[in-house]
């Protein structure tokens, strides 16, 4: 078994990044003009990387499947972005952000990467404000912060409930400036279908123009993959419909190791599923847990009545409600990390206490917050004898200011007014901590091939804290990759343009074309979605919030069977030489059908419970923590990096052992 070289620099953790940056090779400005970089994906990571690399002088080619870079799914992030600014004076620091992120990730992330992330977090806020991102402010004109799950300070910057949108528009505006200057060549409605290696180095990609169907060759001195996570392997997730793993999976098949696929985040606060036609799930920002209290009926009879529509939540008296998070975790209450909150909801619903027709929902109640804020406002405005109605009105005003757009979104989907009746929520697949293995430079195991943002694995371990995805995407794109990539490219200043007429490009284009032709000519009988939904069911039922060896073995066999049937029976109508949405989906689902199996294999290998990965075989059996997840540091303090060997079940495991020199490993406790 080979040892993966993470290339983490020596020295004290606080100095690693600074010292390293001071010593790595640079490319001089005149030479940058002769170097091309491909960036695939234009979310926060890809967009910020493309803009920054172009500002530095490289020639950037950027690709996205949407009709505009501004539509990448980073745009849907609601709650906020963390940064250790300590503007609130509550004792925050780089170290605390680092510590919280490592602890929140249940000690399965790479220490040095996380510390670097914390170090640049403050720069991100400075940069975004300079770009004109309209963060929320207080009456003194300074930036406002709020708190998020799993931490004890307020370090989250936000722009209403649209933080991801505003940060992405910031990166997009920086891209636009470079597109106008000709430093970024932007390819909208293009999908990367494979990577091209020349002499072992990543030197280009093959894309399909989604409007004309044309297969195109693009060359560069380095390729950056920033295509997000693989949550849609579950079919239903909070990801966008088009979010896919094709770029990440294709580079895996060409030599990039895939790390920790089983580390997937099931987000606790999503709008529950309403029927089999459901196409996606909508997230309600975790920030709602700051003010909302989560509960189910304490009595099973009340729960049954609610499920049948015979009882309303507002009719259940306070003493008959089970605020189970506050009961089980008095220290953190409703603000426990996402994985803990999700499993607790599942536990109650599995016991029959769910609160909608499907039995898969819990309440998120704002009545207490409305009353608390209402009383506060009444005092501020001098209403000493305010009536109950007045207090409610004032309180609802505060809630509207904080979460108005989320409440509106909920009401549009569910047709219930969350100011008057509690919201219903249930966990849904949201974020994938696993992804392509990268070293400290964010380079994959293929030279010249980089992977940033959610698509890589490095910073969140087994569980990501709220408001850290935006931070990592922008850190990678604005402040890490633009430095580390120079170290690699400094060897390429004499290489010259990479030709696209080489046998290597010929061969990969042929593979891509053959696969498209297969889909178009296959005389199957079932739609792409048919297979995707079946895969999703297996993933959710057997590789979901709670996993065991029996189910995982079954899942691997079932996914393989679905995959074999897919290749025989899939039907793709239309023409390959024009816009063809079914063809796009077919390619993506084919890759999910392989990734899903590796996912289950990884979950099977990791016989411990950590973060979002919960093995029923590994729980605390007695004492105060009984039933809680049990991590096993002796056997599993490593990153699983899988090497492709044909069938997903044949993938070979390489281990990067994780060392924690600056943090003591503890079992997480939020009690």
């Amino acid at each position: 078994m080979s040892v993966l070289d993470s290339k983490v620099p020596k020295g004290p953790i606080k100095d690693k990044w600074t010292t390293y940056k001071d010593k790595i090779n640079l490319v001089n400005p005149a030479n940058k003009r002769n170097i091309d970089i491909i960036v695939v994906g234009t979310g926060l990571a890809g967009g910020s990387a493309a803009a920054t690399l172009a500002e530095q002088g490289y020639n950037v080619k950027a690709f996205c499947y949407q009709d505009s870079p501004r539509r990448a799914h980073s745009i849907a992030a609601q709650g906020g972005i963390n940064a250790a600014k300590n503007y609130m004076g509550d004792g925050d620091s780089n170290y605390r952000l680092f510590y919280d992120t490592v602890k929140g990730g249940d000690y399965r992330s790479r220490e040095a990467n996380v510390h670097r992330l914390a170090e640049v977090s403050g720069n991100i806020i400075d940069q975004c404000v300079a770009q004109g991102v309209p963060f929320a402010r207080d009456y003194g004109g300074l930036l406002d912060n709020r708190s998020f799950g799993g931490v004890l300070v307020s370090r989250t910057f936000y722009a209403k409930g649209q933080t991801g949108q505003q940060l992405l528009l910031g990166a997009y505006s920086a891209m636009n400036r470079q597109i106008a200057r000709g430093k970024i060549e932007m390819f909208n409605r293009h999908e990367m279908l494979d990577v091209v290696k020349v002499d072992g180095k990543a030197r280009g990609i093959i894309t399909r123009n989604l409007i004309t169907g044309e297969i195109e060759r693009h060359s560069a001195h380095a390729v950056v993959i920033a295509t997000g996570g693989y949550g849609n392997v579950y079919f239903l997730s909070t990801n966008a419909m088009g979010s896919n793993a094709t770029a990440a999976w294709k580079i895996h098949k060409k030599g990039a190791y895939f790390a920790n696929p089983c580390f997937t985040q099931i987000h606790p606060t999503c709008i529950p599923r309403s029927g089999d036609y459901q196409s996606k799930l909508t997230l309600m920002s975790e920030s709602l847990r700051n003010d909302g209290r989560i509960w189910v009926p304490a009595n099973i009879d009340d729960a049954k009545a609610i499920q049948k529509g015979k009882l309303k939540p507002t009719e259940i008296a306070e003493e008959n409600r089970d605020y189970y998070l506050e009961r089980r975790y008095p220290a953190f209450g409703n603000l426990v990390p996402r994985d803990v909150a999700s499993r607790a909801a599942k536990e109650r619903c599995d016991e029959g206490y769910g609160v909608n027709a499907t039995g898969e929902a819990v309440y998120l109640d704002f009545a207490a917050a409305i009353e608390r804020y209402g009383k506060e406002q009444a005092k501020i405005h001098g209403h000493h004898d305010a009536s109950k109605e007045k207090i409610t009105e004032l309180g609802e005003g505060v809630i509207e200011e904080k979460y108005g757009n989320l409440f509106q979104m909920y009401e549009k989907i569910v047709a219930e007014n969350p100011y008057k009746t509690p919201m219903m929520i249930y966990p849904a697949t949201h974020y994938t901590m696993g992804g392509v293995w990268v070293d400290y430079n964010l380079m994959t195991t293929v030279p010249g091939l980089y992977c940033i943002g959610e698509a890589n694995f490095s910073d969140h371990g087994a569980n990501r804290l709220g408001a850290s995805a935006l931070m990592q995407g922008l850190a990678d794109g604005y402040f890490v990759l633009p430095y580390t990539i120079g170290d690699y490219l400094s060897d390429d200043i004499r290489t010259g343009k990479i030709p696209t007429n080489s046998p290597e490009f010929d061969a990969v284009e042929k593979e891509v074309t053959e696969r498209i032709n297969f889909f178009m000519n296959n005389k199957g009988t079932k739609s792409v979605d048919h297979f995707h939904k079946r895969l999703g069911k297996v993933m959710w039922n057997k590789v979901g919030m709670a996993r065991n060896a029996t189910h995982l073995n079954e899942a691997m066999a079932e996914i393989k069977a679905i995959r074999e049937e897919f290749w025989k029976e899939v039907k793709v109508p239309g023409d390959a030489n024009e816009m063809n949405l079914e063809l796009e989906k077919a390619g993506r689902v084919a890759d999910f059908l392989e990734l899903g199996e590796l996912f289950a294999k990884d979950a099977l290998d990791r016989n411990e419970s950590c973060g979002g990965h919960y093995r029923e075989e590994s729980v605390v059996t007695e004492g105060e923590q009984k039933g809680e997840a049990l991590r096993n540091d002796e056997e599993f303090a490593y990153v699983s990096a899988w090497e492709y060997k044909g069938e997903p079940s044949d993938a070979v495991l390489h281990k990067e052992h994780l060392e924690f020199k600056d943090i003591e490993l503890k079992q997480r406790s939020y009690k």
Partner: protein
Amino acid sequence: MNLTLKIWRQKGPDVKGKLVDYKVNDISEHMSFLEMMDVLNEQLVNSGDEPVAFDHDCREGICGMCSLYINGEAHGPDRAITTCQLHMRSFKDGDTIYIEPWRAAAFPVIKDLVVDRMAFERIQQAGGFVSVNTSGNTQDANSLPISKHAADEAMDAAACIGCGACVATCKNSSAMLFVGAKVSQYALLPQGQVEAADRVKNMVAQMDLEGFGNCTNTGACEIECPKGISLSNIARMNREYLSASLKG
């Protein structure tokens, strides 16, 4: 519920399109409009026909990709939402629903209900940014206090998702609500002041070049805008434009 759909089908940009009738049955009121379209497409694929092409992605009203003109209204009958947030409870059994693409000369049809919105991209490239490089050495974020009022107003303008409903719904196919929102975001913030004059002139020039119509203050755009972008942004853009022009 059972519905009749009259959907615009057009094979490509240079091919003549037409409305085609389809039937869908057993549609639940809890489905989103696009889930109803999924049902139709599954039906079409299973019968060997080509599914209807339409743009969509996030399906939660924020990416701005979806763009349907439903019964003569951008994003359908409901207010303050995108097509993907529209639910079938807004319709009733036996309804006939007309589904068309955005209609504007500056947004040519690519296929069926999919249109080309590159004109919006080019307008943003003409000036929709603050020229600040990523250095890690910009001043501390709190060294520039901005009044809460200005920050909130800038946020309201920045909430635009760039879907193009304003253009589609305007009888002049004007893009002034879109451009006004972008100009306003920067005009309201101190960071935007340095380049304010050039920005508004360049963006308006590009907007005119793309073939969008002028504004005649009917206010349809504000009503159909899924994010409630206010007409006052157009007024602000006009003021900015006038003062930039007078400065020369």
